[in-house]
């Protein structure tokens, strides 16, 4: 089962392109983004490593069970509520920003409310399924999409419009100190492991995760490409004028002899799959955390429907409020809070794991 852990991590690495991370890094490109990229690899990986090794000590238990067994109620309930909001917003921001992208680039003649609604219904439907099912669906979506994503990346790297000098120019700014924004954006790609908070229940009995060392390697490749390729395509200055740098980058490529000439469309469909998978995983974790807060009498099926309904309703109402700029600002804020809360999560699990060892 441990391969599903890698799907979770990898999915998040891919989804970072939608969740403003490249745009944040690019907007700070002269003020320490490069350093942030370099720093966030050890930082993100350390968090990941500590969390995974700690939570693996509790075979078959998720975060709610661990907290219930080892912490008092006054700590457990606020902590869970906090994490529920974090996971909920992770899903919300991906959903809203991706529906904006769909509206802008694919379906300008359909109301964005309908698009958001369709996304919410689908994600809600999947999020309330069994954890196992969610993982299987994720696996299928990843296996079907990743080859094409790699192909797009290959096309980008070998493209004649790709200007490596611009990348080198950005790389020389490596000695500028990073901002918290860019550090939060950089570490975001490793965040997928936090979903183990629920999925640890299914991860089997192997105490140690094999092949953990591959994560920083793949992570640094993903980070470098998602930060530097747009710069190579659009130049060091102009790149900042794009709302979604990666979508515009993919629109700069074409397949000369393909059925679909503009890579943009292929790219957006691939990322529809990836970002929806990301959001239904986040919502599934959120739902499971909420379920764990309920006094456990009897599993009622309408309860999860109700929770999903409320989550969907909130998302739908929020999507009214956001415009592009405020969505971006919220995204930045979310990523910043996320880094802090991720540290908190890792710290809590680490402390509990250490305490039971004694």
């Amino acid at each position, binding site marked *: 089962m441990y391969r599903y852990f890698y799907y979770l991590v990898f999915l998040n690495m891919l989804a970072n392109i939608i969740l403003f991370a490249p745009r944040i890094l690019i907007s700070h490109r002269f003020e320490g983004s490069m350093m942030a990229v370099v720093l966030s690899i050890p930082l993100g990986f350390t968090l990941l490593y500590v969390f995974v090794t700690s939570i693996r000590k509790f075979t078959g238990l998720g975060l709610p069970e661990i907290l219930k067994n080892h912490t008092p109620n006054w700590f457990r309930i606020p902590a869970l509520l906090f994490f529920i909001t974090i996971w909920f917003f992770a899903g919300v921001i991906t959903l809203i920003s991706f529906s904006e992208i769909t509206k802008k680039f694919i379906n300008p003649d359909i109301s964005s409310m309908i698009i958001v609604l369709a996304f919410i219904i689908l994600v809600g439907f*999947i999020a309330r399924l069994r954890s196992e099912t969610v993982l*299987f669906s994720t696996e*299928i979506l990843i296996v079907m999409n990743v080859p094409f994503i790699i192909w797009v990346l290959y096309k980008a790297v070998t493209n004649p419009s790709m200007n490596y000098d611009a990348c080198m120019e950005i790389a020389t700014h490596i000695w500028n100190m990073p901002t918290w924004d860019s550090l939060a954006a950089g570490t975001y790609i490793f965040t997928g492991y936090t979903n183990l908070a629920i999925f640890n229940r299914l991860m089997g009995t192997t105490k140690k995760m094999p092949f953990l060392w591959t994560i920083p390697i793949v992570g640094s490749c993903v980070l470098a490409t998602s930060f530097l390729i747009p710069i190579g395509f659009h130049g060091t200055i102009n790149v900042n004028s794009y709302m979604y740098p990666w979508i515009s980058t993919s629109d700069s490529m074409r397949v000369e002899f393909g059925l679909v000439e503009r890579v943009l469309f292929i790219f957006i469909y691939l990322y529809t799959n990836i970002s929806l998978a990301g959001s239904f995983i986040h919502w599934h974790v959120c739902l499971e955390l909420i379920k764990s807060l309920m006094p456990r009498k009897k599993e009622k099926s309408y309860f999860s429907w109700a929770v999903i309904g409320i989550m969907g309703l909130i998302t739908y109402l929020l999507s009214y409020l956001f415009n592009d700029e405020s969505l971006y600002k919220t995204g930045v804020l979310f990523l910043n809070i996320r880094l802090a809360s991720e540290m908190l999560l890792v710290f809590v699990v680490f402390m509990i794991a250490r305490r039971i060892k004694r």
Partner: protein
Amino acid sequence: MDLTSQNKQWLLDKLGPSDDLEHRTMKSPHMSLELLFITNICDSVVIREEIIQPFFQMHNEIDFENYLLSFPGCDRPASNVDSLNKIMSGFVAILFQDHILLFQAAQIKAAALSDAQVEATIQGPQTAFSEHIDTNLNLIRFRYKNSSLRVESREIGRLSRSKLCLLYDDMNVDHEVLDQLKKKLDHIKVDNLQSVTELHQLLTKQKYTLFPTFINTERPDRAILNISQGKIIIMLEGTPFVLILPAVFFDFYSAMDDNYQLSLVGYFLQCLRYVALFLSLVLPAAYVALTAYNPEIFRVQLALSIAGSRASVPYPAYVEVLLMLGLMELLLEASIRLPKSVGSTATTVGGLILGQAATSAGLISNIMIIIVSTVAISNFVVPVNSMSFAMRIMKYPLVLLASMLGITGLVLGLIGMISYLTNLRSFGVPYLRIFFYRK
């Protein structure tokens, strides 16, 4: 008053006045006894040669009874109900002075073997199961000579009392699944059971199901392959199809030909089937989405030629698609129901008149004809029939989504379908799961 006359009277009452009920007395110098059987399902040759002729050669009752008891399938009934049931299934009741013997003389007319019709293969075994369960068991035993093969039979159906057999390899089978299955079979209450697909519906809890979670096959070789993989076969009297469970999605896309061909050919065939699956699901919906919502996705030349072909069509793309798909479904349904002798009419009328005339009248675009025929052909590439029916229906929700949300709707529909399939379980086994390893 002795026991037998009471029992005899009870049996005669139950079997009622019926023209095919034979009740006759045989008298020889040494003894006399009565025969009771239903003529239509008994073999008169067997009765004549194995009961009546020896009767006149025997000198006393005990010899004759011992002689009869030496036949396999002949024994004393456990109760009146037992003898009634056995008479109904082709036994002859021999009424002695104070007891009854039941003699197996059933004649089944459906025992002949024929070639597989629904699931044909090019190379490999050709015979299909027959409608007679003993013949089917014989076919399995003949090909699977392992001593751990188990056969358990039971009766199902309050009126039809069909015989139902469970076959499995005791060494490989998942006993949890087996117990679960037996429990479910015990709870089934039904009057008639004619086909294993009915049983499939009774075994699944959901009221509305679309995707088959058990394989339905007529091929003995597939049954044997699955037994050896630890699956359970359910056989039902009176149908040439057997049910295999648990089954996963990928089983429905593997034909027996994959194993009989050389390996690369087998892989190629398998890939072909998934391509066909993709085409038959996606093409109609993609046509709607790409002509009505997102014509800019295709390269310009292609988009122009599609638009040119649609120039004369007077209604929106989704009407066109639904119209043509509806006609195609009618054509398919007609060619299944038509008697063989007029079967070719449907294809001629459908192919020529619909295809040619509809385009030249400008009602349907040329590209639409290509799409409809591709969909129809690729739909029937699926080796297991019940799955091809499911996929035939699945394209309509996708068309609906595509006509509401364009290509995004199509992608959403596909994701939804994948997650619906992954949520299905076939007796606890995840239905759709990539990298599915069998034990």
